[in-house]
């Protein structure tokens, strides 16, 4: 500050130092933040390089445009009404906004908008200062998703384990309170079933958790046909289902680089599903083939079974499911395990089905997997 009436030279020096300070502050701000100025209607009058960089628009494409050009349509109209009400009153607004870049991609910015006020206290322009928080927002959403998944997992596991466990508790207390030996024997005979069920559910649970720990599981060169034949043999298909026809053709994509454990498990789960949900009205026919499409290796497992009501159950198909007690094979984890294995290896799986006609499962093993 100047403490007495300055002469011209002093004033010039003083102003120069103020401008230099301001210039330095602007450089500091431009280096760190995404900055834009707009007029009171929201038309852009200035953007810095960081704004152009993140929005992927050029300086010239932005100047004169309304700020809506980067609106992503994500927020409710009320969100922006509130923003405008605040700054039009001359107050500072803070918040997180999702914007849309020129190429259609989205980015999140922590935003502060400060009105510049005239002598009467009315805004004549606004400056917005933003910081890119896209990464944090993504992590936040991912975390929410994972939390929800874990919660569901917990509920399903609890449900599926609770059913046989509560039967065991009740049977045990009945055995304890039982007076005749005959009666006791009868009750003890009933214990085996829930114990086995509990054991199977537990094993599947361990298997599905195992996948998450495998992380860097090793790929090896595998012949699809060899693996499939082993599965057919292990399921004892010829003996147990002599009427069924199981055909396979892996000539279009005969080999794959994949973890053997996973490939065997995927084949086993899909084939046993096809067998389990065979239609009582016709002989079971399963066709399995591999092929190359869009640089990936695919496997298709097609059956003529009872089919799936995709409208009612399509979304839940690969999720964890609560189990039905009457069906001993369906413990609710097998398709979930399959999906987790496929996705862990960078692939994808989906199903098509029509009730009463049959189902087809498509596994895309991994993108750009060469033979």
């Amino acid at each position, binding site marked *: 500050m100047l403490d007495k009436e300055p002469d011209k030279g002093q004033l010039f020096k003083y102003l120069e130092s103020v401008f230099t300070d301001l210039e330095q502050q602007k450089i500091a701000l431009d280096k760190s933040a995404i900055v834009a100025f707009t007029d009171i209607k929201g038309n852009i009058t200035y953007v810095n390089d960081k704004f152009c960089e993140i929005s992927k628009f050029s300086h010239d494409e932005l100047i004169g445009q309304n700020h809506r050009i980067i609106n992503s349509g994500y927020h409710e109209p009320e969100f922006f009404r509130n923003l405008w009400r605040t700054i039009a009153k001359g107050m500072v607004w803070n918040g997180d906004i999702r914007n849309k870049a020129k190429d259609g991609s989205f980015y999140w910015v922590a935003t502060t908008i400060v009105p510049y006020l005239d002598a009467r206290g009315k805004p004549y322009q606004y400056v917005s200062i933003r910081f890119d928080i896209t990464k944090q927002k993504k992590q936040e959403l991912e975390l929410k998703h994972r939390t929800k998944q874990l919660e569901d997992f917990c*509920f399903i596991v*609890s*449900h*599926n384990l*609770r*059913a*046989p*466990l*509560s*039967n065991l*508790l*009740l*049977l045990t*207390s*009945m055995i304890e309170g039982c007076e005749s030996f005959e009666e006791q024997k009868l009750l003890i005979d*009933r214990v085996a*079933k*829930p114990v086995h069920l509990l054991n199977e559910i537990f094993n599947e649970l361990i298997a599905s958790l195992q996948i998450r720990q495998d992380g860097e599981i090793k790929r090896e060169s595998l012949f699809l046909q060899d693996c499939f034949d082993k599965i057919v043999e292990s399921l004892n298909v010829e003996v147990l289902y002599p009427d069924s026809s199981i055909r396979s053709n892996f000539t279009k994509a005969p080999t794959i680089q994949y973890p053997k454990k996973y490939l065997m498990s995927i084949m086993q789960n899909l084939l046993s599903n096809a067998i389990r949900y065979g239609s009582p009205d016709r002989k079971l026919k399963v066709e399995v083939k591999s092929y190359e499409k869009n640089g990936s290796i695919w496997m298709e497992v097609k059956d003529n079974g009872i089919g799936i009501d995709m409208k009612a159950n399509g979304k839940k198909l690969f999720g964890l499911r*609560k*189990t*039905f*007690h*009457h*069906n001993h094979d369906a413990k609710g984890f097998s398709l979930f395990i399959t999906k987790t294995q496929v996705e862990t290896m960078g692939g994808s799986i989906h199903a098509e089905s029509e009730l009463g006609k049959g189902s087809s499962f498509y596994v895309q093993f991994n993108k750009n997997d060469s033979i």
Partner: protein
Amino acid sequence: MKAIDTLYLVDDDDTYQFIVERTLASFDLVKSIKIFSNGKLAIDFLEAAIDNPDQVPDIILLDLTMPVMDGWQFLENYLLLKPRIGKKITIYVVSSSIDPTDMERAKAISEVTDYIVKPLSKEKLISLLGSLA
């Protein structure tokens, strides 16, 4: 305690069916117990028995997760039948699910008296039936 005339057990778990049946028999709590392995079997039976008060239940123990027709679908169909039933029926949902969305959904249905998480112990079963008599 007065015995209850008719109880429906709607649950696909045969071990659980066995347990409930034996517990009820040993205490002489219910004159007649009918067991159905899914909602469809129960609703079809109820519809056919609607004019026969002996066959219409006083109490239904209903599981949620069942094949063919689950507990929710059973309740929807029950609501349609209800105006034609000339008897008060008490329904308890008895499930292994501890998912709060299941619990809230069940409690929002006025026909459901309570939601019970398995195991349904002998003591709990007796007190349920006792509150009814």
